[in-house]
């Protein structure tokens, strides 16, 4: 493992203060960036090959370059609505190293030509928002935020905005609506935020980790950063490991590290005597992988190739003590609860899926219901307004595909438990009573 970039000093006491952060080289990257032109900074970002750390994995430099050029008012929004089950990396970053985010955000705004910025932080992150507010006050007092930053001519305002607790507000257009004071519902795309985002203005939206990586890229130089990781997945990544592991937590890894090394090496693997049954490589919305996938390198390409995704980098490990039905129900219920209700397949599909899964447990399902459930997932995928529907349908679909036998066994066991099993039906048939 190479040296950590984001978590290098993460446990340094007082890192959240400007004083300690500056002693560790904080805001030097900002000075360096402001001394060069925005075009040069953008070139560094593009050269770094940094891909968005929020889930979609889109090249960050390219995203910046999509913004229209010129003096038109542009916005930069940091998506800190970290709500994907299993994901808690941004929380630690913001709590312990808020200035790294603010510094990255200022540099990105310089490259993008944005003069107004926002950090949209999920409402439950009360402490982290307080930390950010304090850091923002320090950064403003030090002249890093405001008019004519460090004499560069670049000006930037920054507002920390607390959400009200909706997963959908982490979807970028839902986030924008919420930030504008509306009900947080996703918007139709196009127009994309780069053209018409916040208040109809061009808007760049980036995840906390993405922005927090920017100072390191500027410090090292884009090409140097690109040496880390693999051909298509550059750099380091924060991974939140949770579930059935002995040492859950956030780890910074170089992309391409074997998954087994993360789950077993860093996180200690499942408790003694248990086996990995399946694992979510990128949060609860990623299709599950099985034990045989543990030797895959942990990067964007390999995860996609295995039929899943790296997502937000949240590995959730499920061991063999847990029925797959419980996992499916937990996931489906989450997305049913968080569906905004705007588009039909997501709203109705998530509700229906939960009802079907509950019937399995109640013992009133038949194997035919598995077919229906699988087809419902297929009908959701790709047909929704945003990706929330897919976020349920993909993992549920993968569980049905990979653990079909277990679902069938569960159905049969539950039917017998409820007196509806094949054996229980025989007396009724014998007497000719049907229906």
């Amino acid at each position, binding site marked *: 493992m190479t040296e950590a970039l984001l978590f290098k000093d993460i446990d340094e006491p007082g890192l959240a203060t400007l004083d300690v952060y500056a002693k560790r080289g904080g805001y030097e990257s900002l000075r360096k960036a402001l001394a060069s032109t925005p075009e040069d900074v953008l070139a560094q970002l593009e050269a770094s090959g940094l891909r968005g750390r929020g889930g979609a994995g889109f090249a960050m430099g390219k995203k910046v370059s999509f913004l229209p050029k010129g003096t038109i008012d542009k916005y930069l929004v940091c998506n800190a609505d970290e709500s994907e089950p299993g994901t808690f990396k941004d929380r630690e970053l913001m709590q312990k190293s808020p200035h790294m985010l603010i510094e990255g955000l200022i540099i990105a705004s310089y490259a993008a030509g944005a003069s107004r910025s926002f950090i949209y932080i999920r409402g439950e992150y009360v402490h982290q928002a307080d930390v950010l507010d304090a850091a923002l006050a320090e950064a403003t007092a030090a002249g890093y935020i405001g008019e004519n930053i460090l004499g560069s001519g670049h000006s930037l305002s920054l507002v920390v905005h607390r959400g009200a607790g*909706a997963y*959908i507000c982490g979807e970028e257009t839902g986030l924008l609506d919420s930030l504008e004071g509306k*009900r947080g519902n996703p918007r*139709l795309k196009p127009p994309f935020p780069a053209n018409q985002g916040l208040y109809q203005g061009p808007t760049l939206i980036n995840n906390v980790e993405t922005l927090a990586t920017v100072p390191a890229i500027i410090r090292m130089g884009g090409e140097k950063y690109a040496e880390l990781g693999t051909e298509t997945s550059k750099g380091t990544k924060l991974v939140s490991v949770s579930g059935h592991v002995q040492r859950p937590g956030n780890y910074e890894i170089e992309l391409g590290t074997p998954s087994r090394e993360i789950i077993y090496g860093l996180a200690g693997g499942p408790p003694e005597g248990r086996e990995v049954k399946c694992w979510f490589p990128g949060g609860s919305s990623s299709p599950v992988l099985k034990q045989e996938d543990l030797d895959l390198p942990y990067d964007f390409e390999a995860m996609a190739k295995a039929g899943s995704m790296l997502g937000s980098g949240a590995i959730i490990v499920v061991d063999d003590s847990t029925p797959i039905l419980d996992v499916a129900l937990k996931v489906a219920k989450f997305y*049913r*609860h*968080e*569906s*905004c*209700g*705007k*588009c*039909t*397949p997501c*709203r*109705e*599909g*998530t*509700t*229906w899926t939960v*009802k*079907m899964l509950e*019937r399995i447990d109640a013992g009133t399902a038949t194997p035919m219901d598995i077919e*229906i459930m699988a087809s419902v997932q297929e*009908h959701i995928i*790709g*047909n*929704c*307004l945003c990706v929330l529907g897919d976020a349920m349908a993909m993992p549920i679909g993968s569980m049905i595909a990979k653990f079909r036998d277990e679902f069938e066994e569960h159905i049969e066991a539950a039917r017998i438990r409820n007196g509806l099993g094949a054996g229980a039906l025989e007396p009724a048939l014998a007497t000719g009573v049907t229906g």
Partner: protein
Amino acid sequence: MPRPEAKTITFTIDGREVQAPENMMLVDAAKLGDVEIPVFCYEPKLGNPVGACRMCLVEIEGIPKLQTGCSTPVKDGMVVNTQSERVKIAQESVVEFLLVNHPLDCPVCDKGGECPLQDITFGWGPGKTRFVEEKRHFVKPLALSEKIAIDRERCILCYRCVRYSQEVAEDYQLVLLERGAHSYVSTFDGNPYEAPFSGNIVELCPVGALTSRDYRFRARPWDVEDSGSVCTLCAAQCNVSLTVRDERVLRVLARDHAEVDDGWLCDRGRFAYPSLGEDRITHPLIRDGGELRAVSWERALDEAATRLKRAGAQTGALVGGGATNEEGFLLGRLLREGLDSPNIDSRVAGTLPLELHRALGEPGLQAKVSDLEFAHAVLALECDLVPDAAILDLRLRKGVRRHGMKLVRASLADLLERPAELVAKLKEAGPADGASAEIVVLWGERLTTGPDGARAAQALLDLAGTLGIADTDNAGLLEIPAQSNGRGLREAGALPNAGPGLSSVDEDGLDARAIAQALSKGELSCLYLLGADPLTGAADELDRELWGRALANATTVISHAMFLTDAIREHADIVFPAGAYPEKEGTVVHPDGRIQRLRPAVAKPGESRAEWQVIADVTARVGLDLDVLTGGMASQQLFDAVPQYSGLTLEEIGGKGVRPQERATAVAS
């Protein structure tokens, strides 16, 4: 402001090459190729598409995911497939999803038989259900307002009503509460949805979730017939479709005329119909021993003729705003030719000098309704649209919201004392390149009715001159008359100083106010009221007192009336039952000059007869044959008498109306 213009492109849909305007949304462009793409949430009148229902998913070559046809602008060379297996599965699945929580109570649902969800389920649905779980439940139906019931179980959450409230009516009352499948439509504060245009959501709803409480359970679509007409309850004259069952109007729907109402109706127009059928006068009445008693038509007509002949030139007539052009025209003939009396007026508060009437009605100065939407600026001068011409209020909102039109409100004092400021404010909105600004002045008739009426009219003409309105396309004046057919009655000659087509008259008659004064002084003896009630229609308290004296002092009051109001009950000597607009035939004139046609949807109640017929019968008994045996003959006489209507026929007016100034250019070119 430049109106949208699009070049024509060619795209392919289901193997057919189709021409369409570039950037038209695919669901609309598909229709040009006779392809229907099903939709629920798409409704262009509500603004930008939202892509929420996902019903319109189609396959576009070169794009991996299915796209929503409602939000995809069509481009040259685009290849669209709506019939592939993938699209079929997507459409079936959306219908299946929509039916997951939609109760199948079609047999008792008002929407059944005219329901887009039924139609689309039939056309694009999977044909069977796989959903065996329990559907969601709400208490139902609830009163969303006094007029609208909401059934939240039937709601498919298409967002139409909410978007309407937020983006068209701008009353901001309707919202979606809760999330996911628990979402439901409600007012933000839980209070009833009270707004002047609330009823439009009933028509917008693609299922039976929002229903009219008046219409609820009154008919099924196969029990009724639709009849197109024009609402004359205010000057906006919206085009309506009347739902009729057993000679009763059960419902009023919009008939969508882009140059009149844009497809919306106000709540008065939509919900007032029950009151048009109740407590009506259904027989001719004559005052006998101080009481009004029903009599035969013969007796009522004879008595009216006798009294009119006796009064002769000492007769005055008032025409109410609900009268058709034909009625006003024929009454003018009765007065001027039959009785030799010039005293007829349709303006409650008095008339203007003829030259001002003519100048204000100059064809080159007249704006049309859509100009309000696309103008750079609109000056609203002494008009209060919601009571006066409600639906134009929505048009102004649309102009401001969608096209950045600048709305300036001003009063009579602003016009008389600070015209330069007004001009400056309006011109500011014009294009930056110095080209002339398109400005519409929307003015209420009351601007020209006070003591300063003539001065105000002149100031208005001066303002139009300064703004260069006559020389600018899409600019103009648009008057909101105080009465719904105010413009038509003037053109038909129901003015003391003008004959049909604002022609000069030999002798000026008394205007409304002067008629009242002459009656109270005994200089006139007979008053003929055609759908006019001078007490309820009085401009102010003084006017009301004056008319009180006039009515009390008149020897004879003859009235065409629908209801026994105080004025009629106490003062009328002869009453003819009058028709409500769903019973009438004839023409009216929209404020922008458009001649529109009323067509009877239901029979007249009791022994009522058409007004044109009654006037003709009375006139014959006075000794003048008007030569009017049918409503069509009355219209023809009017068209022959008014120069700008020359050559017009009822067929040409048809369902959409005709603006004489546009007709002139159409004939010339």
